[in-house]
């Protein structure tokens, strides 16, 4: 416990990102850890939520609740599909001036998120492998002297989670459980802005957007309590990002933090209803509203309707779960993108139980 507190306090100094200045931060929705239709549609609640609509578990402390083992292949695609090759070019290809110049001729705001992954979940244990998660956004500003802001990142990650009921240790701890997730990720990204004139005057296109890389190892332990009975109340505490990132980069501060979740599953006549409220980033969140996340879902038959709210977005979504194939669709009403203001996004997810 002392070690955990030391890690939490140690990381306080890492919050040096000037978020009130143009183009100096990553869009808030790109900072989310889980990129799935369920997580997005539920306002990115995690700690308060037991089983997610896609059958996986976000909070490892709830792993003992899982009754079935699933192996899920997942493909998530946010809108702006055309930008996929652009994002890959930024990370994997040599940059040319012509390529950068051509960006000025595109839409003023383009955004894309995509994720491909494989996850295995069973009672007490889960593993996820995500070989490809891409984020890309660009915004063109100031028609008088056009400036483009670009963020492109490709991540690979691997996560192992385990959860145990604490009643196994002491019957007095009935209803309590403990879980932890170990995450290893590697990230390549470019982030910057430049004007048309900077492109024209530059000798080397890559110098305008140098590639940066990070590797991180994190542990996210959590403790949860679930009530018995029809309402299935949940309370959960969790630490996040206990670990190390190297090299550190102010764009992705990822300081160790603390979260708190409250969940409820009120009995309804038909189907099942789940509500959850998370208070995430309690130590380093930017504002009270920035810490607040909420989500609800209602499942009836093969359809699960979801809605979520957090500071970045209001979301609605649907998840259709067939025997093998699951399809999710999320509509996001974004409040703040990079600098682009209000906008809407649609994302789809296809997953297959293998």
């Amino acid at each position, binding site marked *: 416990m002392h070690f955990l507190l030391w890690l939490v306090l140690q990381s306080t100094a890492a919050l040096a990102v000037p978020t*009130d200045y143009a183009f100096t931060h990553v869009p808030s929705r790109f900072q989310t850890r889980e990129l799935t239709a369920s997580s997005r549609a539920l306002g990115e609640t995690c700690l308060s939520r037991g089983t997610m609509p896609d059958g996986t578990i976000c909070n490892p402390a709830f792993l003992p609740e899982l009754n079935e083992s699933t192996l899920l292949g997942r493909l998530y695609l946010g809108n702006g599909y055309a930008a996929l090759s652009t994002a890959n070019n930024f990370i994997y290809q040599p940059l040319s001036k012509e390529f950068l110049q051509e960006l000025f*001729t595109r839409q003023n705001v383009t955004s894309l998120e995509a994720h491909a992954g494989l996850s295995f979940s069973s009672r007490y244990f889960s593993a996820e492998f995500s070989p490809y998660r891409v984020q890309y956004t660009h915004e063109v500003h100031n028609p008088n002297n056009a400036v483009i802001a670009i963020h492109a990142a490709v991540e690979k990650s691997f996560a192992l989670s385990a959860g145990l009921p604490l009643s196994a240790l002491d019957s007095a701890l009935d209803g309590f459980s403990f879980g932890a997730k170990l995450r290893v990720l590697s990230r390549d990204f470019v982030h910057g802005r430049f004007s048309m*004139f900077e492109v024209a*005057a530059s000798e080397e296109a890559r110098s305008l957007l140098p590639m940066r890389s990070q590797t991180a190892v994190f542990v996210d332990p959590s403790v949860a309590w679930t009530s018995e009975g029809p309402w299935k109340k949940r*309370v959960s505490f969790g630490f996040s990002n206990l670990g190390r990132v190297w090299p550190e980069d102010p764009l992705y501060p990822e300081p160790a933090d603390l979260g708190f979740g409250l969940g409820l599953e009120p009995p309804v006549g038909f189907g099942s209803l789940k509500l959850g409220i998370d208070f995430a980033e309690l130590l380093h969140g*930017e504002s009270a509203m920035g810490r607040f996340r909420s989500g609800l879902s209602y499942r009836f038959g093969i359809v699960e309707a979801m809605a979520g709210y957090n500071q970045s977005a209001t979301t609605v979504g649907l998840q259709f779960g067939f025997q093998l194939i699951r399809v999710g669709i999320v509509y996001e009403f974004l409040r703040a993108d990079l600098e682009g203001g209000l906008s809407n996004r649609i994302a789809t997810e296809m997953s297959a139980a293998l």
Partner: protein
Amino acid sequence: MQNSKFNQRAFALLAIPLCFAIQGGCREKAATPHPITEAYSLMDLGENEKAILLLEDTVTAAPDNTEARVLLASAYAGTAGVDVYRLHSSFQDLLFQQPLSGHFWGGKDGPPGEADPEQATRQFRPLEKPDEAAKSKTPLERAIHRLDLFLNDAREIAMFLDRFPRISPERWPLLDKALEHLMMEDPTPDIRLYRSFLRVIYLKSFLDDALFANLGLGTREWACQIRLYEFRDDLTWTSSMLFHISDDLTKVFPKRSMSLNAFHGTVEALVTELQMSQENAPSGSRTGLLALEKTIKEVFYCAEVK
């Protein structure tokens, strides 16, 4: 079961105060956007005048803030009517799609950095080495010869500058302000390029107004209306603009030659010729330029022109 209830209460009692203590303890950040962020938003909406007010304050408070100064310059340029999006095809054409050598830079369509020194020498007419034929001419013949060369080059440059917008004279002070904010010690290449573009647009607007607007340019009627003092001042300003454009572009692309140099050489030669006419004025005349003007009008029989 009793244990469980005890745990529930203990958990809740522990959880809620801890949560709110942490919530309250964290400092809220101000929601006011940074002036530069706000200025970008205003200019995205085309509200350049509001952006100017905002950025003037920022620049006054922090004169070394290069980003604010460039942004302010662009707001002035936008108010003057220089809109990069509207000029996109010109910029694309000039900067990106076609080799620059076809426009600003004379010579081959080679990759960046490849110069054509022969062409640069051929096109530039240095003042120190006037052509031999001109040496034997009288001051009047030399002036008319230089004027002829100037008009010839001006016609070519007019075709090149045609792609840029004409900014009306009442908006030139806005261009002055834009350029003033772009004048800084050791500017980056993009700032040099940006102010070169503003100067090219300014130059085009000025030449349009002072020269090309006259449909009779180069005709006897035009020669008869010429006011050499004003003309010399116009040429001096033009030469100064060309010098700054050339200086900036040479520093951005040091290995390239520029066809604008040829025009600059012609203008400079004519200015020098007019200057010499003034300095070598015959005794008794108030100014040499007025005398030259009078002689030109006599040569062209301007008294007969109505």
